């Protein structure tokens, strides 16, 4: 997978390049829209990561230009603005996504994966998710661990499903709020941690191998060990 990152801040550009390369992407970087357009003309990219506040052009205009030139690969927009305006939300409906700064690399990677998957051919929707001896039946909305049915609320099941879909990968609090509760808020209290704490009580207590792990400063992950 080959990506083009267009970001004017050197530090962010470098850490993005490093983070993305570590995750196995091939990454080209550009610091402004003009360079980006030239790079896009020379190579074929599977995805773009574009900052909204570029020195020579608005990020949205760059996206419009790329689209006009026939580049249809999905775009992940990085925005330092607080409110996401209609044009950005319009792009979201068009199959692209946005992320507000500052963001966790884990979240950027997760969103990027989702974006790139959207572009790929049909994927069979999983009916069951399995992590070690935890099994989720997505049709009957039922979770079992070691053949014991877990008594979960709808919310808890949704949270567990989200963790299991991203098994082995770290999810942040922001991602959980956005994907499970469908809201982009930053609670001042530890509401998400409490949700996880309660879920962990039901999923992990009494078992030798805990599945849900806290990665301090980043978020949570469900994994086999």
């Amino acid at each position, binding site marked *: 997978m080959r990506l083009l990152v267009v970001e004017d801040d050197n530090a962010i550009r470098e850490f993005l390049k490093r983070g993305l390369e570590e995750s196995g992407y091939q990454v080209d970087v550009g610091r402004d829209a003009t360079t980006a357009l030239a790079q896009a003309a020379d190579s074929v990219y599977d995805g773009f990561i574009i900052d909204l506040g570029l020195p020579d052009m608005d990020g949205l205009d760059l996206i419009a230009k790329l689209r006009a030139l026939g580049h249809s690969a999905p775009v992940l927009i990085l925005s330092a603005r607080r409110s996401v305006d209609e044009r950005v939300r319009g792009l979201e409906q068009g199959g692209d996504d946005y992320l507000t700064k500052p963001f966790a690399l884990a979240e950027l990677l997760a969103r990027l994966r989702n974006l790139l998957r959207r572009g790929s051919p049909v994927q069979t929707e999983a009916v069951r998710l399995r992590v070690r001896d935890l099994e989720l039946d997505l049709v009957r909305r039922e979770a079992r661990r070691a053949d014991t049915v877990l008594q979960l609320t709808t919310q808890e099941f949704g949270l567990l499903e989200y963790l299991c879909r991203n098994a082995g990968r770290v999810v942040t609090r922001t991602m959980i709020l956005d994907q499970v509760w469908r809201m982009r*808020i930053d609670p001042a209290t*530890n509401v998400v941690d409490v949700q996880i*704490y309660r879920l962990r009580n039901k999923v992990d207590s009494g078992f030798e191998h805990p599945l849900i792990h806290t990665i301090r400063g980043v978020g949570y992950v469900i994994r086999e060990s």
Partner: protein
Amino acid sequence: MSSENRDSYRSTAAWRIASWPTVAFAIGSAIAFAIMYLLIARDIRQRSDEWLSGEAETLADVSANTPRDSLYKRLVQEVAELATHEVAPAGQGQQQNTVFFLHADPGASPIWVGPQPRGQFVEAIKGANLVPGIPASLKVPGWSKSFRVVYHARPDGGSVYLGFSDVAGSKMLSRLTASCVLAWAATVVLGFAIAWIVAHRTLSRVVRITETVSEMGTADLGKRVPEGSSSDEISRLARTFNRMLDRIQASVHQLHVLTDSVAHDLKSPVTSVRGSLESALSYDEHGRWRERVAEAVEGLDRLSLMLNTTLDLAEANAGALRLQKESVDLAELMRQLIDLYQPAMDLNHHQVIANLKPVKVDADPSLLNRAIANLLDNEVAHLPSDRHISVSLRAKNGDAVIRIEDDGPGFPRALREHAFERFVKGDQSIGHGLGLAFVEAVAQAHGGTVRIDDRPGGGAVIVFSLPMSEVLIAKA
């Protein structure tokens, strides 16, 4: 038209602008018509008096120069009848011009030409105080119209009276009066109608200006008032408004550019520092620095949250908070938030009672989410354990009213007055002191309010209300 409707018409400037000239016009034209009436009436009387004087003189001459023989009476009578016929058109009784002639001679029986019985005429003449040769008015009992009478005394003691009731003239005069009044009324009504229509049409442009300006929120400052092609006062007003809106739009835009660039300039380093710390976390295989690095990351997250809220407040204080409005199911939004906060509240042994009526508002869902989350954060952070929280939503007088009540210690009195100011927080508070200021900013940006009260029986009540639909200032 209901009386309320009529009153609302009367309170318009168009009504006032049209009424006063109409009143002035009505009075002026009434005076003009009255003067015309008086002149014409005087003219008619003058003409009839002239005729009367002339005829009376002729008759007096005839009576003086005719020898007193047996024919005298007949001759005088014929001349009088001739004169009578001259002015009396065909007709009956009081509906026609009436002329009478009385020739009184001390020695002989009087000669009477005119309507019978003559007794009342003679009585009336006797009672009147007539001056020879000058026409005077005489009221005859039984006759509605008064007579003009002229009297000539003869040197021999005899006297000649000629009376004339100008029914045709007064009929003409009353017809004239009727048509004058009609014409006057018609012009006044027409004048008012034209004045009202012109005023209404002119002022409807002012109404359009008002409507456009009041419909305009900070979200759509791009709207402009229709200027019109002419260069009259209202077009100038519209242009002035538009220039003013240009300036407001420019300053709001400046502010947005400023806050955006502050956000960009501050968040870029935060983002890269956070990125570095995050990768440090993933390389820290032995977890030696994990705690400290994680704390640093969390600190950065709090910093950017505070930065966001500060910039939102800066925009809100300038009335320039950017709203992305849509129809929001407030009950659903609140249910989601309560679900999210429920476990945290359970952990504190807070019992939550939610009573949410279905209410929809036209609002920015993400700002509402953040504002209500702030209020719930407050409860989680400050309410001692084993207490009750009641969250209710209902519609009241066109407002969506959210009440969050608890039976905790209540808001410290000293803090309450400044609770919505920035960086004001309680001694025990772990927040950054922007929460309630942000909640108030969101309420105000939507045309709503938020207030803090004591709960009867102890505890605090926060009432957050939003108008359910856009209220136009012009119609309020």
